[in-house]
């Protein structure tokens, strides 16, 4: 019989808790070095132009300025898929693109130098619309890419990377349908997760020595030090890269795409041979750092009366901004996730990843699936309306069950071997009161003068809970303690503490006796990092395996001394004992005071499990002002086992922010089509939810054991934001009685739709 866990599943105070509440926790901008220079970027005022000349002579004369670099001064470092985006280029492709880099002894000197740089541009016409950009007459952003259409395959996911969703026979599918609906929906408000901490880095360049190559050490802010290193190695080629992680002040996926700020600082450090700190301003964070990809779906669906989707066919346009590094990966995962939520034998969903003249899209939680579903679910809703199908019945019928399958990101078909989520789906609906509130499509749940309420729901699942490789070491010491060597850094989920809890539970030692190595790519084994909710299952498995390996090695070491076989032994609080005769025991110190034992654990990718999140929302729309208020949210999930109750609660509450539910209500990045400027690149004009507007959120969490690892859990944090936005769109459509085709449901947009409808009725 399994013993009770001491820490996993319990409220254990996070290891960094006191550091955080006392201000001791160090984020990258809190680090300081002797001779540290400040790095700044001179940015383009033009959305699309060739740089004819740059005059940096005056900037170089400013006292304290140590380096001014332009595209002519730097190596030809390139990245992107394909590799066409240069770290500094003679062409600028969005308003805010980097033109020159400055390193100075003080911020004031750097600012003064910035003001003295003179650039002459040869302006080119810009293009901002994803379909417009595809037209032959539109300007091409890159000579190498025709009509701004990027290849849809990223070799990172293998040669058969899922690039489109094509299977079965859509024509025969449509012929079986009771209704066919064709429409266009778009989630193109390019919301920005905007973690509180802005992107930044400290880079220290080292010249080659003793035959070793040139190297650069970077103190970064993100949760993926090894992946970060891999990206930089692919850009800097022969340069050795060491990544040191710190507390990360929020990422939501975005900060993996920090290669630019990191390369800028590295190049400046290379030129000045001093460490360089570069921290983006909030304006740069919003206007020159990565956004969520834009998503537009022009498609048709066929559906039967019983809610069977017979076919989906059309074009998914994905706006990636001025380059792509991860959009192909997001499209692959998005196509996979669509199949987890919607069963259809016939798909012909072609994807188009398109460059436009705005800042680039990057990774954001929801990773492709949220973007696609924000368009696909409203389209399916229109078919449901025609057949009078309750969306709850539809999603319950369509969500993945054991034995179903999907083509995942690598183009391979996987049969799902996880649990049936029906219990969570049902319980969420009951907690919300779905049956009482659902009045039918395009019908408000209640009407009170100009105020109307409406309800909506969405669902999301992701088989990336077991993506990619993780490695870990656990070193145990004669004093009865253990050190976990893992490449993760804490970015807010509490997972670093959770992995230490797992070590403590496997080794049956007090949590206080477990520590973790510094997050340093030189020290730790390879770690993909917490992404796609993979932390609990993938990283957790590597950690558990490493702890078990260390424990088994310890048993082998001490078995002869206990006159027993290793498999007859167990351990508790630093003592190894014979299971059948617990008095025969030895302290770990008997391994030798001058020894340690290191276990190694690895996790191999497994795409046969998925998580699940269902969100129900109720909104109130003021039909006179167009104002929408979020009245209530119920999230429901089944996680196998809760590892950290308050941490999970926090992840589920986070469904609102970081471009989740609020990206349907008011969050948007406003791009001026005349200048290419982002008009709300600050925290006053970019709208975000304050503590005065918190709706009640209820979370329903089940713990049906899953076949993952010894704790039978999978992660769920990443997808908390994903079902909400389309649920809001559904709720507002129902409240107003009109289909809403775009996000967010701003008063301006709603009033236009409401008045058009009234005019139609008047006619």
């Amino acid at each position, binding site marked *: 019989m399994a013993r009770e866990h001491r820490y996993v599943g319990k*409220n254990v*105070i*996070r290891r*960094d*808790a*006191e*550091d*955080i*509440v*006392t*201000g*001791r*926790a*160090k*984020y990258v*901008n*809190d680090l300081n070095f002797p001779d540290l220079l400040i790095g700044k970027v001179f940015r383009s005022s033009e959305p699309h132009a060739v740089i004819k000349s740059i005059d940096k002579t005056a900037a170089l004369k400013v006292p304290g300025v140590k380096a001014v670099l332009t595209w002519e001064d730097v190596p030809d470092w390139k990245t992107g898929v394909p590799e066409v985006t240069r770290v500094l280029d003679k062409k600028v492709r969005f308003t805010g693109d980097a033109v020159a880099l400055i390193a100075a002894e*003080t911020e*004031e000197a750097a600012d003064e130098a910035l003001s003295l740089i003179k650039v002459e541009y040869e302006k080119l016409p810009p293009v901002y619309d994803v379909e417009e950009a595809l037209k032959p007459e539109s300007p091409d952003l890159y000579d190498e890419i025709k009509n701004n259409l990027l290849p849809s395959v990223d070799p990172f996911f293998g040669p058969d990377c899922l690039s489109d969703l094509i299977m079965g026979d859509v024509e025969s599918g449509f012929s079986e349908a009771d209704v066919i609906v064709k429409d266009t929906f778009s989630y193109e408000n390019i919301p920005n*997760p*905007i*973690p*509180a*901490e*802005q992107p930044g880095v400290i880079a220290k360049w080292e010249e080659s020595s003793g035959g070793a190559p040139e190297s650069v050490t970077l103190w970064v802010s993100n949760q993926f030090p090894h992946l970060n290193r891999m990206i930089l190695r692919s850009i800097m080629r022969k340069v050795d890269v060491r990544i040191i992680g710190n*507390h*990360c*002040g*929020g*990422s*939501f996926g975005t900060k993996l795409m920090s290669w630019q700020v990191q390369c800028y600082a590295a190049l400046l450090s290379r030129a000045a041979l001093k460490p360089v700190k570069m921290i983006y*301003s*909030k304006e740069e964070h919003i206007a020159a750092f990565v956004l969520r990809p834009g998503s537009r779906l022009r498609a048709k669906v066929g559906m039967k009366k019983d809610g069977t989707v017979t076919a989906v066919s059309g074009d998914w346009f994905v706006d990636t901004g001025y380059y792509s590094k991860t959009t192909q990966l997001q499209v692959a995962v998005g196509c996979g996730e669509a199949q987890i939520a919607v069963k259809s034998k016939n798909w012909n969903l072609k994807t188009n990843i398109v460059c436009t003249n705005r800042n680039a899209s990057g990774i954001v939680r929801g990773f492709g699936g949220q973007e696609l579903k924000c368009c696909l679910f409203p389209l399916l809703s229109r078919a449901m309306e025609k057949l009078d199908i309750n969306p709850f019945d539809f999603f319950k019928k369509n969500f993945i069950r054991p034995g179903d399958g999907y083509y995942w990101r690598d183009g391979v078909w996987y049969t799902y071997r996880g649990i049936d989520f029906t219990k969570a789906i049902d319980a969420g609906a009951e907690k919300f009161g779905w049956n009482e509130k659902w009045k039918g499509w395009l019908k408000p749940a209640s009407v009170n003068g100009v105020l109307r309420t409406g309800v909506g729901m969405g669902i999301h699942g992701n088989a990336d809970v077991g993506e990619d490789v993780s490695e870990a070491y656990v070193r145990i010491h004669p004093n009865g303690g253990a050190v976990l060597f893992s490449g993760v850094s804490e*970015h*807010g*989920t*509490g997972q670093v503490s959770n992995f230490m809890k797992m070590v403590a539970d496997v080794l049956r030692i007090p949590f206080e006796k477990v520590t973790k190595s510094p997050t340093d790519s030189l020290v730790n084994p390879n770690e993909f990092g917490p992404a796609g909710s993979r932390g609990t299952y993938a990283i957790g498995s590597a950690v558990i395996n490493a702890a078990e390996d260390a424990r088994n090695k310890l048993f082998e070491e001490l078995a002869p001394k206990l006159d027993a076989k290793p498999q007859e032994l167990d351990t508790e609080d630093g003592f190894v004992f014979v299971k059948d005769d617990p008095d025969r025991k030895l302290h770990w110190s008997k391994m030798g005071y001058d020894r340690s034992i290191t276990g190694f654990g690895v996790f191999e990718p497994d795409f046969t499990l998925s998580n699940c999140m269902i969100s129900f929302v109720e909104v109130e729309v003021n039909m006179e002002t167009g104002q929408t208020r979020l009245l209530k949210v119920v999230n429901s999930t089944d996680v196998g086992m809760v590892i950290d109750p*308050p*941490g999970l*609660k*926090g992840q589920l*509450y*986070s*469904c*609102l*922010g*970081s471009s989740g539910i609020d990206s349907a209500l008011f969050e948007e990045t406003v791009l001026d089509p005349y200048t290419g400027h982002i008009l709300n690149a*600050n*925290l*006053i004009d970019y709208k*975000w*939810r*304050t*503590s*005065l507007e*918190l709706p009640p*959120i209820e979370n329903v969490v089940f713990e049906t054991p899953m076949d993952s690892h010894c704790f039978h859990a999978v992660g769920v944090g990443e997808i908390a934001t994903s079902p909400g936005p389309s649920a809001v769109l559904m709720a507002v459509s129902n409240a107003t009685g009109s289909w809403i085709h775009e996000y967010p449901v701003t008063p301006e947009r709603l009033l236009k739709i409401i008045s058009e409808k009234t005019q139609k009725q008047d006619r």
Partner: protein
Amino acid sequence: MSDFNNKKSDLPVTVNITVNGEGFSFEAGERKDQVSSSETLADTIRNRVGLTGTKISCNHGACGACTVLMNGKPVNSCMVLTVECDGSSITTIEGLKNKDTGALDPLQQSFVDHTAFQCGFCTPGMILNAKALLDEKPGATPDDVKEALSGMFCRCISHYQVIDAVMAVSKEKD
């Protein structure tokens, strides 16, 4: 203060502030070792006093990450010029712990107990705003807490757990 008043007009102006009970004296001026007229209190605290618990995020008074208590009232320290702070008593997140016992302030302890943070970047600002509220109104209600924290930008949405943590310390009687 007395120093300041006794100075002759041609000598550099001195700004005296107390940070977490410790006195600091800065000369105003444009040299690197002097506080310029445009230097913000946030920068002075971080770069001269060396306390980095005060975070700079938006740097224009919209997010609350840089909140400190100035004579007991919360201010966005990125919007306060250091040269205007002469004679002020500043409390930063580092100053809340009991100096003698080393114990956390009850609010800090409550944040720990409730895991009232995720990434932690806004947490110092959250705690200091809550501290100012409870100092002024020990029986604060949940609505008071929401109002007091309404200037705090938190993208992890730690607010729900923060409100629980603050209410656990509030002397409000239902």
